[in-house]
């Protein structure tokens, strides 16, 4: 690939919201003035120490940060045994960044808190969001409850059916959950419907996007709010080990937990970075959610990025065991990091994720969400190949309680 290597991987986006050729502001004119207003409001908030201070307070006392960086001793031992058995006598030392311990059970809350505080600054009283598995919807409903804001969550009708407990949680928190019947009735259609709502109620409404996608400034803003994951990790590993990690691993749907962990390390060239997409039934089957491995550049939901689509540019539905990774696109900054080669993007199948889900539960007493189980599935392959002094940090982006009914149905008596 003949892509120019930049002096810094952290300088994006440019003033047009581009990361290289990716990103941008591909939205209807109705939304454009609001997006420009949002960009200004975000810049003003970022420059205001009071905003940062208020957010830090809620992050500490409401979200429960910092989240632990935990040495996964038995998982490490397990992969060392695997390494020895294959004649390598290696096995990386594995740390888990415990985002699943946050309030609401995933990393999603980091971003939602930031956006809700920004919405309050902008005087918006009505919040809308899209959700797939329901994690972002629950986080949004939670903070709307906390701050007394109206909350409408768009969710594909198929996902409403698949994720009933989260639908109930959102309602309990006072949100209105709208099942989306248009298109393929999944996450991408929920996002379309949220955009339609926003266009209609543009004066009163703040659109709280759940991942590092959408029109500029969302990919940058969500990344900034999630970067607390990587900043804490850096401090914590330096305190524990006295040096930076050798590698980072995170799962990717839209890619917000991964971008949050990766971004503070992008200009540390010795740190290898791995993103893991959902390969569903396998990339070759076409039934997957791996936009980088199995898609090509296109324009959807306000930005240019890698997408799953037909030859004619029609968006295809994604397939993954994990509803949180079931999106046919990926954040534009990931597309940029893929093309520049700074991050290595891999994928894991449904089956591999299910195995890793069980492995972590049994070895560490931590039931991971199916999303980070994809990252763990690739760790199972990467870790045994590394030497023993290799420090590997895995982002445990969410807890698995929400997935237990689904997994128990799939595994049945095998557990």
């Amino acid at each position, binding site marked *: 690939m003949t892509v120019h290597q930049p002096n810094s991987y952290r300088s994006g986006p440019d003033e047009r919201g581009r990361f290289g050729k990716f990103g941008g*502001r591909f939205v*209807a*004119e109705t939304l*454009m003035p609001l997006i420009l207003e949002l960009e200004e409001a975000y810049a003003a908030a970022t420059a205001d120490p009071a905003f940062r201070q208020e957010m830090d307070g809620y992050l500490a006392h409401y979200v429960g940060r910092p989240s632990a960086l935990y040495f996964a001793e038995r998982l490490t031992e397990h992969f060392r045994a695997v390494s020895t058995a294959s004649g390598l006598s290696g096995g990386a030392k594995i740390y888990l960044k415990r985002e699943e311990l946050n309030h609401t059970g995933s990393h999603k809350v980091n971003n939602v808190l930031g956006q809700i505080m920004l919405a309050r600054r902008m005087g918006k009283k009505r919040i809308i969001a899209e959700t797939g598995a329901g994690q972002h919807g629950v986080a949004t409903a939670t903070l709307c409850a906390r701050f007394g804001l109206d909350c409408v969550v768009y969710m594909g009708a198929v996902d409403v059916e698949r994720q009933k407990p989260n639908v109930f949680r959102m309602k309990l928190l006072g949100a209105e959950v709208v099942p989306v019947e248009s298109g393929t009735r999944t996450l*991408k259609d929920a996002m*379309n419907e949220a955009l*339609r709502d926003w266009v209609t109620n*543009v004066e009163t409404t703040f659109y709280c996007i759940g991942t590092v996608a959408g029109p500029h400034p969302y990919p940058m803003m969500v990344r900034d709010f999630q970067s607390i994951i990587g900043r804490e990790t850096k401090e914590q590993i330096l305190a524990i080990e006295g040096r930076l990690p050798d590698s980072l691993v995170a799962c990717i749907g839209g890619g917000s937990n991964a971008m949050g962990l990766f971004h503070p390390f992008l200009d540390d060239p010795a740190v290898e970075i791995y993103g893991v997409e959902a390969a569903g039934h396998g990339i070759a089957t076409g039934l997957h959610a791996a936009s980088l491995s199995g898609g090509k550049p296109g324009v959807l*939901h306000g930005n240019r990025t890698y997408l799953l689509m037909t030859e004619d540019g029609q968006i295809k539905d994604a397939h993954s065991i994990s509803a949180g990774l079931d999106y046919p696109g990926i954040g534009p900054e990931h597309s940029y990091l893929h093309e520049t080669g700074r991050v290595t993007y891999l994928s894991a199948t449904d089956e591999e994720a299910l195995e890793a889900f069980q492995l972590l539960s049994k070895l560490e007493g931590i039931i991971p969400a199916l999303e980070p189980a994809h990252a763990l599935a690739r760790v199972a392959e990467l870790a045994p190949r590394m030497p023993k002094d290799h420090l590997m940090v895995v982002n445990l982006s969410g807890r698995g309680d929400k997935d237990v009914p689904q997994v128990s149905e799939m595994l049945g008596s095998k557990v």
Partner: protein
Amino acid sequence: MTARLDAKFAALAQEGRAGLVTFLTAGDPDPATTLELLKGLPAAGADVIELGMPFSDPMADGPAIQWASLRALKAGQTLAKTLDLVRAFRAADAATPLVLMGYFNPIYVYGVERFLIEAKSAGVDGLIVVDLPPEEDDELCLPALKAGLAFIRLATPTTDDHRLPKVLANTAGFVYYVSITGVTGTATPDFDRVGSAVARLKRHTTLPVAVGFGVKTAAHAAAVAKGADAVVVGSALVERLRTSLDAEGRATAATVPGVLDLARELAAGVRAAAKAA
């Protein structure tokens, strides 16, 4: 460069009436029906034809046009087939302006340069691409102008006076005023406000102003025609088409006459407004 559009709006000005812009989705429910409709529309009173390029994720459209897109895609419509339809229409009608409306992704994937060359030679006069604001002009707008196609921009109630010059800068053919904040075919606009909105646009441009979104009946069309240079109707026609389909979603003997009847009613509404004025 925008010869057919310019000639049409000049003729309308001469006649002292507003024009009717009719929207249909290409390939809904099949290409043959679309072609028959396209050929029938000018005689039914359509002054400008707007043809939708179907997209799987039409986020600026309401349910009627969303479903029209899905019907067309299900029937196998592609961008190449849409250009075929334009060619076939143009072979039979050299005068009626035709603009393509849609979203950027199918064009981007087709290849901007290839698309513009083929669209121009097929007889397309202009493009309306919803998800390309002026901030992204170098993607398609500027190449389109260079290729001799009008890039018709949407102006909306949220486009303030400060922003209007930017929106109008590279617009050609006509300006499309979106009469509501919202998606196509849903809310009915406040007709009194439409007049003042058009007047505001006219302070910034000499281009004709077409008004659309939410215009459903002949009476609506007449009301909008009083203050605008053209009235755009889409969802109502597409909805009329849908109700004529059989249980499997195929066209029936009622499809073409039904849609053309509504076009005639709308055209009468537009013309009645001119007489009243």
